[in-house]
């Protein structure tokens, strides 16, 4: 993928998006559980925030292994069972401080620019 990064700005945007992707997933799961493609659709619609299933599902798997996300399998008579993702208690406890940290970071970054 390195060939896709054409200059320092592009490289930086890739790193920023990678950095906040986990938080975006946790935020999207805060209100209610979602299945994987529902998350892909939601996040892909954010302006400037591209994502594909090749990125999202492995990340969901990692968040689950870290205990931040839990899954529930819903059986269906009409097709294969669907896996729903939701915040675990640990994930719910983490999401607020993560958002606060990011907000503080943005504020500090803006303050530097105004000085």
């Amino acid at each position: 993928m390195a060939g896709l990064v054409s200059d320092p700005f592009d490289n930086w945007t890739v790193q920023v998006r990678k950095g906040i992707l986990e938080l975006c997933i946790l935020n999207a799961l805060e209100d209610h559980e979602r299945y994987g493609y529902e998350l892909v659709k939601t996040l892909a619609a954010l302006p400037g925030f591209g994502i594909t299933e090749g990125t999202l599902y492995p990340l969901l798997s990692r968040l689950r292994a870290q205990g931040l996300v839990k899954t529930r399998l819903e059986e269906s008579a009409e097709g294969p069972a669907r896996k729903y993702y939701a915040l675990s208690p640990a994930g719910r406890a983490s999401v607020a401080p993560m958002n606060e940290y990011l907000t503080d970071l943005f504020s500090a970054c803006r303050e530097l620019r105004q000085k």
Partner: protein
Amino acid sequence: MKGSLMITWTESARAALQRHNQNVRQAIIDGGADPDEVAGDLQRHIEEELLAAKIHVATMDDVQRVLARMGATPIDAPPPRRPPKVLLLTSLLACALLVALSLAAFLHFRTSRAQSFPYSLVFYPYTPSWWQFSPGDLIAVTSVKGDRKHIEPGGSYLIEGIYWLASMDRAGLSLSITAPSRDSPGAIGPMQAGQQTEVARGVGRFSLWETMKYPGSFHVSFNPIGGGESRGTVYFGEEPVPAAETALKNPTHSDVTIVISMDGTLTFNGKATSDEQLGDLLKKAFDGSPDANVLIKATDATHLERLKFVWDSCRRIGLKKIRIQTR
């Protein structure tokens, strides 16, 4: 391919989904996720989107549309750059100019076309030549307009309709007139520009026009690219029974009339029916009677997939004499 939620997948749709799943499979495995979960999730997601739109057949276009909307830029690729303000303004002006020109051209085209073909003709679609059509293929004429009040030599006619093409990746779609004999004036010669077009696998609308050089029967056909026997033809004309020898006998009555309303709901001989009930009703009425006459009534605004669903329901139980009437 039968989907899980009352959705039928066309071959091309299934192939497009499989290609996509194959492309992302390795990245998903490398990331420690389950590719079967992703594939099953995606198929069901597409089916749910289509069902919400009352579409029961998944085509390649449907798959590509959903994938295009969801598979934006990979996280490892840079997002589209925000253009500088001057460039943005220039682009906006250029877009506005382009839209204005396109609109003017479209209005001119519509106006000139309306002027060229001012008369809407009442026409009868005749039973298509079933032995030629491959499974999944169909042509339906929905409108005939002309510069004369009747179909006659010397007049020019605009024919509009719907096609479904499943048996070939691409095909020619042509409008012709059956010549009384090879010696008829103009019977042999190059086609006019508006007489033919090329269509791709899937479903779409068409517009073809032709000046009638000799008396005969209008028909629209699928033709293999590169030549060969036509692969399905529909005839139509002003008379309830076609005059040309090659045209087929037109059924003068219908044993069953299925109406598709503008919102996609169905009635079977005047009684409301669900998609699920339609197959059973057809089977009860026509089991072992493939020559029974079925009339499907729709409007020009009917979603093509709804028409195709009803059509396929009739074909599935072996019915051969199906007419489509639009208004």
